[in-house]
């Protein structure tokens, strides 16, 4: 697996490097001597160098002899692509129980598909530096529907709305992709939203997709008012177009095995790019998921039979799904919420401890997420975006941590409110002194 860089490649790479430096001002960075998991067809290296030029990976090789503006000594460290959170509410939620700081969920009598939370996104959220310091460089941000409070009993909204993708550098222009995916609820949550039965949630999604098709074929007439009255708003039907055109993934919540199979049926009927979120009982229908090429986003550490829809929850779900050929992404643990999406690596570590092959564990929190949602990042190879983490040790190990995080080739600060508070109170004592420590 450990690749040897052949000499010819090194020459080519040096040539390219020469050209690149001739045309760009950006810092070149050489990450030297780390154990590198590229999570690409380049495989893994016990010790290799990663050269970053202009925010991109230029080359990965052994003992590269190139001049760089900055050299990061990664000997004894582990180098991987940055972690990508497959489902998060980063920038939409600051404090869970402070509703004024939450913009992730709305209520209303629309089916919900047109809701776009993008204007609510706050790149200065404290959650962003914290999760970046945990190794997360990119995330998909989804709206949600609160299953508590006002929205329950509103039997219309089974779509949460449109997701977007961010990089975690905290800049105002850190949204990297809009309309990355749509989210909908089937299964128990869907039933709760749709008025009492999961079958009703299914019917509502199906009806909306059928009407979206009708709209696609008769757009002009419908817009002129020269058609029957539609049950859904134009905005909602427009938002569903990329789904029925097969251009945008539809993330659907479902845990019970039978719910997953119905979701696959729906995907077949409308040629959807289906992604299952949850899939607690995914292992029971792993072959069907694999055959339909439906990837899953799972909470790999949650093995509780917490509802009658997840009686089959188990720690080797990721291992069994992967073995069957399903593409698996691992999310942060639901119990720690969006605030700790970086803990997807602990979940992946547990999945590996339960039989998931090691590199599949790494892919589940990076490369597979990029693949499922069509994002940049998640692997290291020439031309790939240089989201790179240098870890103190095995990234799936609970005693390891990021020592360097690059996003698009730029070294990131790893200071967070957590480290600031720590440093202020390392030795708590009587007096006013703490107020003057920054």
């Amino acid at each position, binding site marked *: 697996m450990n690749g040897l860089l052949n000499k010819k490649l090194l020459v080519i790479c040096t040539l390219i490097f020469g050209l690149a430096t001739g045309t760009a001002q950006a810092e070149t960075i050489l990450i030297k001597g780390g154990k590198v998991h590229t999570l690409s067809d380049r495989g893994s290296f016990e010790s290799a160098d990663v050269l970053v030029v202009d925010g991109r990976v230029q080359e990965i090789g052994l003992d590269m002899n190139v001049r760089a503006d900055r050299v990061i000594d990664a000997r004894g460290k582990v180098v991987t692509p940055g972690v990508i959170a497959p489902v998060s509410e980063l920038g939409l939620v600051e404090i869970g*129980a402070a509703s004024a700081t939450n913009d992730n969920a709305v209520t209303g009598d629309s089916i919900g598909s047109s809701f776009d939370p993008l204007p609510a996104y706050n790149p200065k959220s404290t959650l962003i530096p914290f999760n970046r310091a945990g190794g997360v460089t990119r995330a998909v941000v989804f709206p949600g529907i609160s299953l508590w409070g006002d929205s329950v009993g509103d039997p219309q909204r089974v779509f949460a709305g449109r997701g977007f993708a961010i990089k975690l550098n905290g800049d105002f222009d850190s949204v990297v992709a809009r309309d990355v995916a749509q989210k909908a609820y089937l299964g128990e949550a869907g039933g709760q939203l749709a008025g009492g039965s999961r079958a009703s949630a299914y019917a509502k999604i199906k009806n909306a997709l059928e009407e979206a098709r009708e709209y696609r074929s008769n757009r002009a007439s419908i817009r002129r008012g020269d058609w029957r009255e539609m049950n859904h708003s134009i905005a909602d039907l427009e938002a569903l177009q990329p789904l029925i055109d097969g251009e945008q993934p539809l993330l659907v919540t479902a845990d019970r095995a039978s719910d997953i199979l119905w979701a696959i049926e729906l995907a077949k009927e409308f040629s959807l790019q289906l992604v299952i979120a949850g899939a607690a009982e995914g292992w029971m229908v792993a072959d069907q998921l694999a055959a339909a090429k439906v990837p899953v986003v799972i909470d790999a550490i949650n093995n509780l039979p917490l509802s009658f829809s997840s009686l089959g929850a188990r720690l080797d779900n990721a291992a069994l799904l992967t073995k069957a050929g399903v593409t698996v992404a691992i999310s942060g643990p639901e119990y720690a919420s969006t605030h700790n999406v970086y803990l997807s690596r602990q979940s992946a570590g547990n999945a590996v401890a339960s039989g998931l092959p090691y590199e599949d564990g790494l892919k589940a929190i990076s490369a597979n997420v990029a693949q499922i949602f069509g994002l940049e990042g998640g692997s290291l190879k020439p031309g790939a975006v240089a989201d790179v983490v240098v870890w103190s040790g095995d990234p*799936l*190990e609970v*005693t390891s941590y990021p020592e360097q995080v690059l996003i698009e080739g730029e070294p990131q600060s790893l200071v967070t409110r*957590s480290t600031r*508070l*720590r440093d202020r109170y*390392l030795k*708590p004592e009587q007096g006013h002194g703490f107020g003057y420590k920054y």
Partner: protein
Amino acid sequence: MQQHSRTFGRCIAAVFCTALLLSGCGGDEKAGADKKSKDFARQDAFPSTYSMTQSQPVLIQGATLLTGTGEQLENTDLLLKEGKIAKIGEGLKAPKDALVVDGKGKWVTPGIIDVHSHLGDYPAPAIESSQDGNEMTAPNTAEVWAEHSVWTQDPQFALALAGGVTTLQILPGSANLFGGRSVTLKNVPGRRVQDMKFPGAPYGLKMACGENPKRVYGGKGTAPSTRMGNVAGYRSAWIAASEYKEKWEKYRDNGGDEPERDLQMETLAGVLDGEILVHNHCYRGEEMAIMMDIAKEFGFQISTFHHAVEAYKVADLLAENNVCAAMWADWWGFKHEAFDMTEANIAIVDQAEACAMIHSDSAVGIQHLNEEVAKAMTAGQRAGFDIQPKDAVVWMTMNPAKALGIDEQTGSLEKGKMADVVVWSGNPFSVYSKADKVFIDGELMYDRADKARQPHSDFELGILDAEGERL
């Protein structure tokens, strides 16, 4: 890591040993008091029927031991006999008929103790009809007992056992100023909760600071609706409890008409008397400081602040007042009072020589407390502290035992203690290590290699597949 206060320790020991007749922490000791009137805790109303007969001695050979007393012993043998830790040393001889466990490459710790759990009271599946953890009908429900809600068939108990948890405290929820009594359980299958009750363990009283009570009751238009309303609620209750206690003491000393029993007051008077330990849900540093002053005002001791996301800000005060803090490794942000989180919380509290520990408050977290401790240990090391596995293991064993008043019985690998022991596949502070074998009072209650030694609750039988197993 650090020693618990002598006074507190003595008080707890007294509670444990006599279970009947007790003096308050630091109070004057009157021998020969009338036990009947003094037993506010009613320790024997639902007596423990827990019993464990060790079927055979166990010899674990050549393992790495984390003792829970601050030591790491390499290549050491551990002998369990008659339910107790009998011997620790090198080259121990296996008694006849002993179960011999090859400990090569394995690590051994005391059984994990979770001081904050709701298993059985908030069981899985979490359907409405089984949400029995919070009596949200009045801000003071000191009269309710968590054990009366425990569904012993909650499948989460067995999952926690597979994570090495041998003892756990089941607490009422945090909606109320006084949520009710806790109960400490041994993690064994039981047809009734009494079969699980840790024999002789003192009761706890759940109290809650901050956002939850004021939100729940303020939202109903009743007191408390502010933090100052919370404090008024605590103090009013302690005034009433002091009067109640005095009334019974007078009756005890002077005779006369027997006062009327009041379940709520009994629990509070039990706290004032030192029989019942206070477990206080409290996030903010300021609030912990206020609670410690309330304890002084009314003459009781707080055992432990739970969640304590800001414990690091007042770690010196915790040490001074001999109050423990039970914390998470990294949870934050779900409420404003949980916003000022640092991952070094446990380490800072520990280094200030206060009694620090991990807790789960989660049926997932309870299965991975070793990983949670590993994260907290790493955060401490990154803060510049010298904290090693031999130190950090105390956060999930000995210190929670102290918080629960059972540290004389369990929580460390010491001769004569209950043989509550976990054999790990490797260093317990690795994500890849698993509890291979879990012993409770010397009995093999969980064996990863033997399906026949893995308990399943009634609920799980035939639930996913009429003939097969759920897991």
